[in-house]
């Protein structure tokens, strides 16, 4: 089982993932070029670059704000107001804990590592496009290099903390912020529904990446196997795994479909990623969705 142990490695893996994506990088650069600094119009006057309205000069205004060209056209003195523009704050949530610490083969990363790499890659991509990135429940947004280091740090340090679903009861998503949730989402569908619903109140958009090991989908074991929960508490000896495979596959795909349906209901986007498949492809997919949602 491949796991991630240090920040450098995570950072490196994430950079490597996105660096193998020239097209993605180009896209990110393009976004930052066209939408200056990733700003989002707020529909009212305020700090920003775009023209909003001319307004009669008031005493409280700074003389520097007077638009002399406009004022010269009439007797009134105008000041130029710009539209209030803010940058978008994207929150990423990455699942962690024993449930994520699983891989069916020592050749592929465990789910935790894949989730961490995906999270970090998205954070880096968002930063490239001048977005503000934060970790839901853990870190406020920002887009400095320091922020990136902190994100990586937290992602890794959280590995041992049980967090199978975002803590949506203690934290709320700031209004109009996109939410990216990354995890295996194997909890009962009811819990997931409640949790996502709470977040969706304030979320501008939602992206769910469900990361599963291929073995969790296919159940490729044979013969006599004792299965245990992630906590190692319960156990069940199955004498002939092959005989229950079909039934299991029905159950797990039903669950996956439920999660997907939930996302559809909330207007969120859903992507299933298997740990043995290419992270790059998933990043490409998710990014194209994010990009499309922003335009």
């Amino acid at each position: 089982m491949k796991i991630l142990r240090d920040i450098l490695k995570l950072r490196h893996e994430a950079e490597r993932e996105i660096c193998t994506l020239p097209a993605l990088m180009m896209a990110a650069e393009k976004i930052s070029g066209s939408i200056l600094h990733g700003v989002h119009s707020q529909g009212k006057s305020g700090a920003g670059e775009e023209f909003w309205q001319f307004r009669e000069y008031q005493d409280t205004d700074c003389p520097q704000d007077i638009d002399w060209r406009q004022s010269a056209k009439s007797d009134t003195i105008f000041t130029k107001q710009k539209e209030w523009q803010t940058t978008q704050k994207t929150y990423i949530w990455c699942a962690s804990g024993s449930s994520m610490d699983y891989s069916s083969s020592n050749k592929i990363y465990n789910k935790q590592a894949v989730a961490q790499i995906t999270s970090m890659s998205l954070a880096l991509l968002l930063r490239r496009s001048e977005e503000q990135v934060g970790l839901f429940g853990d870190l406020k947004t920002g887009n400095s290099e320091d922020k990136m280091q902190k994100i990586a740090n937290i992602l890794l340090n959280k590995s041992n903390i049980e967090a199978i679903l975002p803590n949506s009861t203690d934290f709320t998503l700031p209004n109009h912020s996109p939410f990216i949730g990354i995890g295996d989402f194997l909890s009962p569908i009811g819990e997931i529904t409640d949790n996502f619903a709470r977040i969706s109140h304030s979320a501008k958009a939602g992206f769910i990446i469900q990361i599963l090991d291929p073995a969790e989908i296919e159940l490729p074991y044979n013969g006599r196997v004792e299965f245990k929960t992630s906590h190692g508490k319960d156990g069940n000896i199955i004498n002939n795994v092959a005989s229950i495979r079909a039934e299991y596959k029905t159950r797990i795909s039903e669950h996956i479909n439920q999660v997907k349906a939930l996302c559809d209901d909330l207007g969120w986007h859903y992507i299933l990623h298997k740990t043995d498949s290419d992270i790059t492809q998933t990043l490409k997919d998710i990014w194209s969705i994010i990009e499309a949602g922003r335009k």
Partner: protein
Amino acid sequence: MITLLSQITFMQPIILGTLLALPLLWFFLRVTPPAPKTIIFPAYRFLAGLIANENFPSKSPWWILLLRLAIIALIIIALARPVINQADRFIGNGSAAVRIIIDNGWASAANWNAQISAAEEIISQASREQREIYIVTTAPAIGEVTIKQHGALSYNEAAATLRGLSPNSWGADYDAFIKSIANNKNRKSIYSIWLSHGLNEGGIDKAISTLQRQGGLSYISPTPSKMPLLLRPTKKIIDGDTAIDIEAPANIIKTAPISVKVMAQKGDIIDIKSIKLDAGLNTATFDVLESLKNRIAKFQISNHSGAGAVFILDDQSKRRKVGIAAQAGKELSAPLIEASYYIKRALEPFADITINEIDKLIDANMSVIIMPDIAAMPTQTLNNLEKWVNDGGLLLRFAGDNMAKSRAEHFLTPVKLRSGGRALLGSLSWDEKQNIAPFSEDSPFYGLDIPDDITIKQYILADPNQDFEGKIWAKLSDGTPFITAAGQEKGLVALIHTSANASWSDFALSGLYVSVLKRVVRLAGQGKTSNDSSYSSLDPLLVMDGYGVLTTPPASVKPIAAGDLTQGLTPSSIHPAGLYGHGKMQYALNIGTNIAPLKLAENLPSSVAQYHYESEGDYEINLMPSILYAALILFLIDWFIMIFIAGNGFKILRKYASIMLILIPSTSFAASNNIEYASGFHLAYIETGDSNLDDISYRGLSALGAIMARRTSVETMDVIAINPENDEMAFFPLIYWAIGDNQKEYSSKALSNIQYYLDHGGTILFDTLGQNSANITALRRITASLNIPAIEPISKDHVLGRSFYLLDKYVGKHSSGTLWVEKQSASGRDNVSSVIIGSNDFAGEWAKLNNNTRNNEMSMRFGINLVMYALTGNYKADQVHIPHILKRLGK
């Protein structure tokens, strides 16, 4: 099967105790199912409550368990090191010293391997039990009259002693043997094992009782089917037929026939007869063309080695030199009616014919001189002739007109003759024509058929008033002597009373004429050798080794005194079987000629433990490898079952493949070295175990290699140290071997490696590093176990002195030592000596760096010559012929 099982012994029986754990293992395997694979599964929630189909076998079937238990059991048994036929059966258990008695007489060659492997088995057991080992043989070594008992020996010494033994071409000497073992009187008991050839060579009882008194005896003999056989001369060898007797011991098993070969000098087979053997004498008669008979050099029993199975022939049965006397100055005027022509035609296929004057014939050392109708000769010639006859010559005379007319006293005739011939069919004669009467039994011509149509018209009558006792070989039908003969001192004079041509009779036209002449000629030389005063002794020319191969005799073989020959000489350690002779005379000393009839060593006292060498496969066999292989095969069967039944094969395949990889002996390393060695010229030296010496050898050869690269086209890749125990030596044309006093001993495997190398074209330069006697002893010790051809001091014009530089001295650090090379190198190796032995510490001189002395230069030159010699062989020797070749080409 039971007997086989009873022969198995375990060297580590304690390990077998673990077999008891097997039922336990079985119990646990049956009771507790195999532990399931545990997987921590995050999606466990979805598995909960699923019911598995229980039909799938969770336990291995009993027969797979049994198979696996069998594998484990086999491994345990193999680890207990089972051996079949442990040597215990010969020497029992105990602490008494062990004496191995090896029959090494002529009869032992047939079972030599069995004897030696039994001996090796015994010494390995004795050394395991830390018992003293003595080795003694029953026949003395060549040139010795006493027998030396070796001992007490360590295992290595005993093994080396065994290697040094070989069967001999003479019999046992039980008296000497008893003397050698009697020296041990003061010792405590010694248990003896007699590895015998199964024959009692006369007086074995005393030896056995002595051995028993000293502490017990096992007597091991070959099975009856492997008993030695002996070839003995048949009287018929002298007669017209070619035949030989084969003596088989009394307990011979009459099964497959054996075949006996008649062979020519160079080993060509002239005829083979297969014969079914009975106990006692069996005669094999061969059909050999007359013209080939003279080429017969020996008889040999096929597939039966040993000096007794070979019977060599000497000159006695060889082509005689026959001289036909011709009148001085008389040309053959009418060749077809000339007497000498008839004789020549009759004898040509069987003898070397010379026609010359009598004096010249005598000078040419003829065995037979035939005088057709010569009545007179100069007195001087007559005296010479008489002396020649007295010395053992055979003179055959024919009558004729000259003799009939001669008025002089007849000389050199076997009987007194009447003068004048008797004409039977003359105009005045009234006698019937005469034929030859049948030959009597004491005649040498007995058995020849007499044709009816022979007519004797005229012959010379013997004077009837004399004693014909033993002188008449043939009579006419009226009883008058026709062929007479009489001994004269050592020689023989025979007279055929009619003419050698057809003028007096038809005899010369008949086949009988040829047969009679042939038989007469065969009589030549008989008795001549026996007590010829001029040949006081016969030098050994060739001696037979124990396997019946003729070799050059060592100096310790003594000449045979001529007087001994008459007394039925049998081969001995001083006179081994072989060919003895002097000048043109040869005498073949065969084992079968005079030896007493074969007697089995039977009726031994009942207290003597008696065994047979069963067969090669019957000696102590380590069963461990075969049992491990059996386990491996079961392993593979198990694996196949896994593949085909469990359907899980490929995963297991990977595991088993790794096991197989471990089992395959790793030779890749050696192979890669060998590829390197084969891809270029490497100088090599033998690792002596003395690191200092090895270092000098290395540096010396490296320096030589460097000089060679500079001066010649030989480019040395590297200098290789060889350990003859394991290393393949074939890649090195020349190996340098510095023999120091620390020279380590080598195993027989290493020695056979070295022997193989020498036998297949390799050259070793032994260097004793000076005349240090310890080193020379070390060299002797090593070469004692090697079969090294005869060597001689290097000759002045040896190729070694001219293969690159012209050298007359071969110097190293010292310059006094002589270089020894093979006397005559084996064919197929370009006259390159397989061993070169020097004592000048060559590598020591080569290793001196930047030493520009004359001595160093000459030493280097020797080194270069040596390498060139090893590489080019006789090429340089052939260069001598270049001027002639160029001359022939007209250049």
